[in-house]
């Protein structure tokens, strides 16, 4: 359907330490900007024509608006083509990446910086404010008002999935243990200790059936990427992660009554099909080597195995149980450590996932979590009540 007219590649990127940071929103932007330009010695702020910033609630978390121009100022970028902030809740980073890709593919510009940033940890006594902000992603008047922030909502998704497909508590815990174990060796991750299946199940039963270790965190962090047209990319770098496909779907529903299902995400299927189609992927399970999927809660990854088209509906629990998403499985899923291990600074997550795929391609991640010679990758984000799904495919070889 979409004719991508020009090849676009990620040629570099950088990351801040994620966690409860003793740093401001502006500090995080500068750290990520520096890390990104340090990674691309042949590209400086003066080369950047377009700027796309993923950030969800700076108005509430950092009391700042008009943040893209602030990023331009902090990083010394003169934008002469396109500048915008994208807000799509938990998928804001991937949305920024998608727009940068489209702008370059369409010939509007050759070089873009994509930066995702969120400062979520307010002083301790204001933690409920961050939770209130996250409860506003559905219909605030009819859902947020009922205390529907993410943990209990995803707990209900887990409850329905267990009810309908006999997914087990152990299978949920296996996802968390796998991802947290990967995060243990990721220097940027918020949670850096290995966790066993039993430890997940024994952690505080926060919103049953989900326990504390089934949840991603409240995280401060940022990450950046440099995207270039093929022509420009060739001038500066031998290596790139080429964007081969990108899709999104939302089915006219964001509030509880208007979602297609509580245990299935057909929007993920639609978004993935768009991306697979553009990338020429016929059999994702066979053709994808590494995937960074949105494990905001352990249950999410299980639903994604199914709805990204890797296994039959209801077989997601079996997929993790059989080790098929381990580093040496059919698809290495979340070698970065996922949102469960790295934390989830909302607007930065999609950017970090894409950077991870590039780092996996170029073999620069810590050796414990390096996937052997991956050639193709995928990133996936859901947002809000999982009413929207965003999927992008990447390839080490130029298309």
């Amino acid at each position, binding site marked *: 359907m979409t004719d991508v007219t020009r090849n676009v590649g990620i040629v570099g990127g950088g990351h801040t330490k994620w966690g409860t940071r003793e740093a401001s929103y502006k500090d995080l932007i500068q750290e990520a900007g520096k890390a990104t330009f340090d990674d691309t010695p042949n590209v400086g702020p003066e080369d950047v024509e377009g700027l796309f910033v993923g950030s969800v609630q700076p108005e509430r978390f950092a009391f700042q608006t008009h943040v893209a121009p602030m990023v331009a100022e902090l990083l010394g970028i003169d934008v002469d083509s396109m500048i915008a902030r994208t807000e799509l809740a938990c998928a804001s980073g991937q949305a920024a990446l998608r727009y940068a890709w489209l702008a370059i593919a369409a010939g509007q510009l050759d070089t873009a910086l994509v930066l995702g940033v969120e400062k979520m940890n307010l002083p301790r006594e204001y933690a409920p404010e961050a939770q209130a902000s996250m409860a506003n992603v559905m219909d605030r008047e*009819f859902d947020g008002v009922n*205390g529907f922030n993410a943990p209990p909502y995803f707990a209900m998704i887990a409850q329905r999935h267990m009810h309908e497909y006999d997914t087990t508590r152990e299978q949920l815990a296996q996802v968390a243990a796998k991802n947290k174990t990967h995060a243990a060796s990721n220097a940027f991750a918020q949670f850096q200790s290995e966790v066993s299946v039993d430890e997940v199940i024994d952690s505080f039963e926060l*919103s049953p059936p989900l326990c504390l270790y089934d949840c991603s965190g409240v995280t401060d962090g940022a990450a950046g990427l440099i995207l270039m047209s093929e022509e420009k990319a060739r001038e500066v770098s031998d290596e790139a992660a080429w964007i081969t496909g990108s899709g999104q779907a939302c089915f006219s529903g964001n509030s509880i*009554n208007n979602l297609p299902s509580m245990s299935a995400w057909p929007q993920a299927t639609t978004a993935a099909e768009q991306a697979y189609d553009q990338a020429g992927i016929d059999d994702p399970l066979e053709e994808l080597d590494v995937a960074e999927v949105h494990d905001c809660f352990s249950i999410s990854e299980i639903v994604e195995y199914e709805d990204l088209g890797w296994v039959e509906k209801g077989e997601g629990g079996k997929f993790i149980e059989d080790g098929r998403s381990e580093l040496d499985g059919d698809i290495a899923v979340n070698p970065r450590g996922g949102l469960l291990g790295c934390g989830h600074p909302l607007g930065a997550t999609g950017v970090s996932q894409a950077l991870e795929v590039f780092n996996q391609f170029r073999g620069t991640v810590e050796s414990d979590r390096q996937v052997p010679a991956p050639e193709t990758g995928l990133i996936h984000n859901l947002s809000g009540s999982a009413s929207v799904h965003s999927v992008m495919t990447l390839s080490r070889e130029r298309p």
Partner: protein
Amino acid sequence: MTDHYDPTDSTDTRNHIRTDGGRDVVELPDQVELPRLLDFYELQTEETTEIAEFYDNLREGQLTTTECQDCGELHFPPRIVCPECQSDDLAYVDLPHEGELFAFSTVRAGAPMGMEDDVPFVIGIVDLGEITLSAHLDDAEYDDLSIGDPVELKIVEIDGPVDHERVFYRFEPKET
């Protein structure tokens, strides 16, 4: 008064600046009142929302929602324009006050602002037949609940920082 703040002039209180001999001090209030639009409950009067009728009906004791008079679509939440056919000829119809529990959980930590003192609380999704909605589940213990349990509506008054009486719906296990 001059344009400049004069620390020797005790009547000059511009910008809440006070001085005690050393540096000028900018005084801020200890607490900023929660703006009424930051509590979770929308304003419910005709001056503030075009679905005031929904809240009026609820105040009278009836849960309602809009139905499109052109295409027949039943909406929830209530609308002023039908998303199916763009008609604005909508009418309020009654919803049942009893339904079944479709899903539920409990919040034991990490509650949103304004709800921290209610922890632990139980919330769920209620199936009313033609629509499902999210709700607080009052007088319910998480461990005692099962999917499919019968629940019934209750209406609560919201006591908060606005000048009109607000109401909202909740559900509770149905006495058997």
